[in-house]
């Protein structure tokens, strides 16, 4: 575990090499990234094995920066959770890299692409093991920058630019709040180390109203970061648009790296949240709301990637909700499993897009016949996402529902269950419309064919954990999940309750059945449904107006403000400066006119001056009294 810090280093080396030698190597440069990731994955696996063997974890730090008596140390820490995440991230990323080899073949900016995904992965891996706020932020923001550049990979098109911009700015809004949260913690503790914070919080726990309020403030500020990065309402708007990037990037962002970071942030600072019931409630309800919201929107999306994108938002909401209700282990577990199956789904959709060159599911259909591996693995991912036993998603979702059920807000349990049903429904819809039924666009259908091994093998390799991660996890971890991923002594293990399991499964199966009924068997025409539910449909198509609000307030607002400020600057501030200058010159011109050229004016002024001077002096000396 001592060598855990090397895990991010490999992709970073790959990044540097690709930057400097990529151009010379041409498309062979992709292999640098793959090699880097392979090394990272192997090392992550070894670290994971060590972590399983020694539950106390490992931490080390070195002097990095000293400002007076205040010190920031460069350090890393590996715990069970981190080890598991490292493994998942590096594995998924490896798959994405491999997949990209084929997917990005022939792209004009192949090297740039590979260098960035290496950096992206490296940043995520670094984030996972960082032990203090500065380095956390470092990796966190590098991911943001990478996501910007990758989403804008095809920057020739304006919408792609806009999407990239949107992604960066919305997450930035969250980021700055998180930074403020970190500073706030500095104010309280005088440190930027997570462990110091934890020690301080635990030391001062129960410190009265002030303490709780401080914790609430800190927690909510930090939560802002999670809201942005993990695409919680109302900052979720960037994520669906981020589909503008190449599909493997979507896989990387949505499964393994960026969005996971937000949830992980809450986990990392959970000791703060735990001190504030208010903060936890906010987290829980916002998560639940996001989960439900995104799930509903996903139903009406016709872009296969958008469906998956909203499903990501929804699943992240799930995790956040879980954290809010105290399901720390559950959330992390779900994060872990979700990483596998969501990567699988995205790569699967990538394979489809690669085959048919469209993202619109209404132009697909019947592809299962042509893309057998893809269809099969996509189905695995879909079932895992829907939470069907024995797929991995079932286990983690079950844990979350359990946590919600046990919490003080049982309503969240029902929201979770309904969302699960919705999730199953829209995934079924996506699956059926894509792979089954009759091809709706014959031309595309004719030309569709399965990609090369670099496309299919990642799917297969990801399908395995998507299928098995749930039930194999306890064996893998050598302990039940909630014992492997623990948070202090606060979160007790939830006893499995059959009610929960049953309800969850019921909703999921119900969702799938409904999907089959509507899209597979076509017992109910979608047109009828649309007509019957006109208003809700409109609201969903408009994505609950969040995008509208973003355009209106963030983009429009900033543009308006910029125009106002720039205009104010020119007209008022600079106008004042120029006005003073002009006034001076004007006064000068008036003064100049005093010099009329007439001797009489001069003498008159002179005499008047004498009188005035005499009076002045007399006044001063008291001579006038």
């Amino acid at each position, binding site marked *: 575990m001592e060598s855990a810090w090397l895990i991010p280093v490999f992709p970073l080396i790959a990044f540097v090499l690709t930057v400097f030698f990529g151009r010379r190597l041409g498309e062979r440069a992709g292999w640098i990234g793959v090699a880097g990731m392979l090394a990272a994955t192997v090392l992550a696996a070894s670290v994971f094995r060590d972590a399983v063997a020694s539950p106390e974890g490992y931490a080390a730090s070195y002097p990095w920066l000293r400002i007076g008596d205040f010190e920031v140390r460069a350090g890393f820490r590996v715990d069970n959770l981190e080890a598991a995440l490292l493994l998942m991230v590096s594995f998924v990323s490896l798959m994405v890299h491999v997949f990209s080899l084929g997917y990005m073949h022939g792209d004009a900016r192949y090297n740039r692409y590979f260098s960035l995904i290496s950096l992206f992965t490296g940043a995520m891996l670094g984030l996972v093991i960082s032990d203090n706020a500065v380095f956390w932020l470092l990796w966190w923001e590098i991911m943001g920058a990478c996501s910007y550049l990758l989403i804008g990979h095809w920057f020739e098109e304006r919408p792609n630019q806009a999407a990239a911009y949107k992604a960066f700015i919305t997450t930035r809004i969250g980021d700055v709040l998180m930074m403020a949260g970190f500073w706030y913690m500095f104010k309280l503790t005088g440190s930027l180390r997570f462990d110091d914070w934890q020690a301080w919080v635990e030391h001062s726990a129960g410190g009265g109203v002030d303490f709780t309020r401080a914790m609430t403030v800190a927690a909510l500020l930090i939560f802002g970061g999670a809201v942005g990065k993990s695409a919680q309402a109302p900052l979720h708007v960037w994520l669906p648009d981020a589909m503008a990037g190449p599909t493997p990037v979507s896989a990387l962002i949505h499964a393994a790296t960026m969005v996971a970071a937000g949830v992980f942030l809450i986990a990392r600072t959970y000791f703060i949240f735990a001190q504030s019931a208010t903060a936890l409630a906010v987290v829980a309800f916002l998560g639940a709301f996001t989960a439900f919201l995104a799930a509903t929107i996903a139903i009406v999306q016709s872009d296969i990637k958008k469906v998956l994108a909203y499903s990501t938002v929804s699943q992240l909401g799930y995790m956040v909700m879980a954290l809010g209700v105290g399901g720390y282990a559950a959330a992390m577990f779900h994060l872990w499993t979700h990483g596998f199956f969501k990567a699988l789904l995205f790569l699967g959709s990538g394979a489809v897009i690669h085959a048919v060159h469209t993202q619109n599911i209404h132009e697909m259909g019947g592809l299962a016949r042509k893309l057998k591996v893809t269809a099969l693995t996509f189905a695995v991912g879909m079932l895992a996402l829907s939470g069907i036993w024995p797929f991995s998603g079932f286990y983690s979702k079950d844990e979350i529902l359990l946590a919600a059920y046990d919490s003080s807000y049982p309503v969240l349990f029902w929201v979770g269950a309904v969302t699960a049903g919705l999730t199953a429904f829209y995934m079924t819809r996506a699956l059926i419309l894509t792979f089954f039924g009759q091809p709706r666009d014959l031309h595309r259908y004719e030309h569709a064919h399965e990609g090369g091994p670099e496309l299919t093998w990642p799917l297969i390799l990801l399908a395995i954990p998507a299928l098995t991660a749930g039930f194999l996890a306890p064996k893998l971890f050598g302990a039940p999940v909630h014992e492997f991923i623990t948070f202090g002594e606060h979160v007790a293990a939830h006893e499995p309750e059959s009610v929960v399991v049953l309800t969850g499964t019921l909703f999921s199966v119900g969702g799938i059945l409904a999907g089959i009924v509507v899209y597979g068997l076509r017992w109910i025409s979608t047109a009828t449904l649309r007509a019957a539910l006109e208003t809700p449909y409109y609201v969903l198509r408009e994505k609950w107006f969040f995008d509208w609000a973003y355009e209106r307030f963030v983009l429009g607002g900033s543009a308006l403000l910029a125009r106002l400020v720039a205009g104010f600057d020119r007209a008022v501030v600079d106008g004042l400066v120029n006005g003073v200058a002009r006034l001076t010159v004007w006064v000068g011109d008036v003064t*100049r006119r005093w010099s009329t050229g007439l001797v*009489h004016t001069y003498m*008159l002024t002179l005499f008047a001056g*004498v*009188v005035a001077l*005499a009076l002045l002096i*007399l006044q001063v000396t008291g*001579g006038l009294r």
Partner: protein
Amino acid sequence: MTGAAIAFAILAGIVLLGAWRVVTSEQITHSALFLGLTFVGMAGLFILLQAPTFALLHVLVYVGAVLTVVVFAIMLSDPEELRGPRPDQPLGERLRRRLLSPYYGWIPVVVTGALAVVILVMLARAGLPAVPQGEPVTDDLGVIGREMFTRYSVPFEIASAALLAALIGAIGLTRRDVREADGRRPASRAASEPGHQPQARVAAGEEVDR
């Protein structure tokens, strides 16, 4: 009322009248004459102040030199005022018109009036003596002469230098240039001669040059 007082009153009257008419006479020659009158009145006052030498020198220089020069100048300058009287208006009318024009009327009056008031008020406060605080120097010519060439010899030399300067200046300003008289300019310098170009420049700059 003593004789001295009567003499003072008369002399003061002469001086003030003379001064007044210097300013207000329509004809400048009249002004010059009234200036002479003022000088004479002043001399009388100096005598009254028991400064006969001063009075003498005053008359000598002012009447003999200054006034002559002034009259000389009036003759040479041949201004319009010299060409004869304008239609005489009644004094009241003249005063009214004068005072109504601000620039040459009431503003100067106000300014000089204020100045006079300030000075007079201060004089009133000064607690000036009514009688001389001693007897005057008897041999004033002798004393003045001696002082002038001993103690005041340096200022005397400076003053003579000033007279010299005035002389040079007056000659320098009024003397007709040889070249001018010849009516032509030296050929070799004509090109770079500033005479042409500056004039042109000045003329060109006239509008902007305020």
